């Protein structure tokens, strides 16, 4: 059941109307049932896996909270982490590592190349997202930053709540548990804001991402044989596609939550207007980058205490970013995606430390020029990074770079693709620009009513007239 499908529309309508008539306790029960149904629509068997993981975490968190014995506390923390990472590792990374180790061994003539130990594993939907939520919860309980959930079903709902279940945003217990326990306020304002977010999400998904996919897929799927100009266009297109796809999903999740009175964390904040790489990661997939910062990067900084100087920052960054890459999937291109950003971030910190305030323009035009130069530069770094993300093999990355450098004929460019790229990206970027300037995603709703109606009609026209009216899968469902 995708958010942009008719089935989901009916499902949500029923859930929402029921929700409005229930008391808090029954609201929560109903949401658990609805979420289970939502997940079971994909595969009911993995519901038990999730329930097992939730139960372990709840039990461990209770045990950790109950005692003051550091040894016991640590044991329960490790049990929980071991189980969470074990499940994630098995389902997501087992085949990848086995295949690579086997490849290595057969290279060294230590194993027969015909031996196949890989398994046919289906990746449970949303496993990367809910595992990270559970881990943040248990670590926060261990550090006594939050009190554990007192009621098992409250914690159950925290993990399984359907808007954020499958592709995030990755919620923190600190933010979300209180919203489950306390009564939530639903009013017309929240409803309209939520509905607008859902609409915006649909626009980003169906108008931007799915149309961009039509440019991207034919070129990336058959790999080689294209002109560099074609690759360049589809690289830009993919950058917009993945943004539209994932930000669209996050907006829909936030909107659905808001309609029910929940506040779900923001996941994207106009990332194309980032002025440096660090800024970019504070704007792109925020819930993941902040998770990694809090639960991996900062502890690593503590762990690398013995390393002197800035080397420890670079090392911690490289490890964190590689793991961000690997989080997306068990494939070498994701590892390279992580390394690419690790290098960029380290380099950025390096020049910031060394050449701080070396170039700071004074005049207003100079400031503008400097801003746009940096935005354009970071945007192109993103385009390159997303190319690595999209490639299905390392050799394809090589092919594309070769095509860009050696086989680039702008005259042979596919004009239709170029027109489509400009046509579908411009409305998105205009919205993003105003959102960046006003720092408010709801800016359209705050205009004069006539202008607001006009703009909403324009967006509706673009969505219905030009959007792709099929429930295409979201890219982040595979992670």
């Amino acid at each position, binding site marked *: 059941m995708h958010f942009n499908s008719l089935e989901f529309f009916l499902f949500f309508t029923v859930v929402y109307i029921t929700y409005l008539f229930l008391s808090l306790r029954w609201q929560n029960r109903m949401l658990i049932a609805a979420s289970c149904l939502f997940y079971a629509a994909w595969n009911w068997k993995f519901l038990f896996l999730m329930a097992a993981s939730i139960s372990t975490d709840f039990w461990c968190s209770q045990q950790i909270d109950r005692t003051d014995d550091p040894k016991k506390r640590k044991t329960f923390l490790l049990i929980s982490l071991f189980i969470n990472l074990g499940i994630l590792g098995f389902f997501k990374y087992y085949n990848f590592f086995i295949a690579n180790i086997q490849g290595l061994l057969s290279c060294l003539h230590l194993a027969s190349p015909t031996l196949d130990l890989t398994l046919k594993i289906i990746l449970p939907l949303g496993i990367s997202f809910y595992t990270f939520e559970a881990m943040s919860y248990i670590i926060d309980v261990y550090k006594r930053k939050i009190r554990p959930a007192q009621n098992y079903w409250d914690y159950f709902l925290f993990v399984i709540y359907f808007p954020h279940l499958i592709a995030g945003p990755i919620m923190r217990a600190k933010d979300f548990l209180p919203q489950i326990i306390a009564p939530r306020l639903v009013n017309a*304002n929240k409803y309209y804001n939520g509905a607008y977010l859902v609409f915006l999400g649909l626009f980003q998904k169906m108008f931007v991402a799915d149309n961009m996919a039509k440019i991207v897929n034919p070129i990336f799927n058959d790999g080689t044989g294209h002109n560099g100009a074609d690759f360049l266009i589809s690289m830009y297109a993919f950058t917009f596609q993945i943004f539209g796809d994932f930000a669209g999903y996050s907006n829909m999740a936030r909107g659905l939550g808001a309609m029910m009175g929940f506040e779900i964390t923001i996941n994207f904040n106009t990332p194309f207007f980032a002025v440096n790489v660090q800024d970019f990661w504070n704007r792109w997939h925020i819930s993941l980058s902040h998770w990694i910062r809090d639960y991996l990067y900062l502890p690593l900084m503590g762990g690398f205490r013995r390393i002197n100087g800035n080397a420890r920052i670079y090392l911690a960054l490289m490890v964190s970013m590689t793991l961000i890459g690997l989080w997306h999937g068990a494939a070498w291109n994701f590892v390279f995606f992580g390394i690419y950003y690790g290098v960029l971030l380290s380099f950025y910190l390096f020049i910031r430390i060394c050449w701080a305030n070396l170039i700071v323009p004074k005049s207003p035009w100079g400031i503008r020029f400097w801003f746009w130069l940096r935005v354009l530069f970071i945007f192109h770094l993103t385009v390159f990074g997303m190319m690595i993300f999209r490639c299905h093999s390392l050799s394809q990355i090589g092919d594309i770079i070769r095509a860009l450098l050696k086989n680039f004929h702008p005259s042979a460019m596919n004009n239709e693709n170029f027109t489509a790229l400009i046509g579908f990206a411009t409305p998105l970027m205009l919205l993003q620009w105003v959102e960046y300037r006003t720092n408010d995603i709801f800016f359209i709703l705050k205009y004069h*009513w*006539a202008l607001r*109606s006009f703009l909403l*009609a324009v967006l509706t*026209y673009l969505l*219905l007239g030009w959007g*792709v*009216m099929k429930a295409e899968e979201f890219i982040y469902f595979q992670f």
Partner: protein
Amino acid sequence: MSLDKRPILQDILSILVFLLTLEILLRLNGVFDLSYQSYLNHKRVSAGHVYTIMCIGDSNTYLGGENSYPSQLEKILNERTGGLKFKVINQGLPAAPSKVIMDSFEPWLGKYSPDMVVSMMGANDRHPIVLSPNQKNFFKFLAPLRSLKIYKLFEGIVIKIKDHVRSWVPGQPAPKPNVPPPTPFKVVPKKYVQLLMLGLDAKNNGNCDAAEYILTNLLGDPDLDITFQQRVDSELRQCYMQQKKYPELMDTLRFNFNIWDYDVGSTDNVRELCTTGQAKEEVIGLLTDLIALYPKSVALNGLLGACYAEYGESALAAPYLQKIKQMRSLGDMAILKQDYLKLHRILKQHKIKGVYVQYPLRDVNDLKRLLSAEDDYDKMIFVDNEGPFQEALKPDQYYTYFTDRNYDDMGHCTPLGNHILAGNIADAILKYLRINSIRDSSLSSE
């Protein structure tokens, strides 16, 4: 921003502004599309190009010679546009189902390189589009809104949703009581083929008794493959028809209808009997018996209705024709849908405009539904022949417009019927081409 304090008037105005903007944008979109098309047409016409239209379809397209609808279409288009030259190519394949048409479609494109393709196909399919329900639009009171673009937009969405909802229902109970299981292809033993040839020879030489003897003996063989048996049966029935041996004829018809209520050969035989006014009691008796067995068969009910009408008993025909109208379901038009999608995609790829024509007296929405999942659905040209024919039929007799009842309450067109058909298609084409501006340019260039 408190919504509770906001006056209702403002809300209403907001909605009006919203709808108005949407309507204007959709219209601008249409104007832009049309101007682009007219620009392309200008280019073609000024280069002395003859605008070529290829009509593909079945016997409904093919039949009629000078009076066929493609020929009449050419006449109408050239008459109405004066200076412009249209060439219409008739590519109708009699008795061809959509698949056969689509299989040979691409070579035709290469041969004629048309600027536009008009298609009217699906009548000979396993689940023919002409058997589709003749539903009345429940929302008729919305008719004045139909000229609005937003109405069209939302109509398209509703059709898509309906289409989607239909896909939830696993395997709709199609009205086919007794479809034979797909028999694996068997090599027919040589002796059977020889016997059949012998029988055919006898029949062709006018010796029907001998043919009957040979073929009945052949049918007696218990090892006979069922498809081969049906082949022999159909030859045998022709003998019976010639000799007016109605009881025997009814037996083989019964046998074949029992295997498959859509059996084409048997249906043709029955139709022939009806139209020539023969064997009234036997035919009606047979069909009534069969309908008692298979009350849900659309084909049988329709056939009986058509036969009553042919025998001149329109009072008895009416309930059956009414019944199938209710019973007819879209069924599984998957193949036709595939073919229409294929046609549409080929045309799109070659940048040729497609015009999709629905058969007379059939609901154009059934045709629309086949293509509704496409992205450019709202830019497609559909031609509705339900309304115009219904209007024309009222004062006149059925046979003024149709030569037969091949599709129960509709058949092949007479020249006059084809004229209505061609007129409707011409209207749609001229509207699309925005012909006035083309005419102006071509006149000035002459």
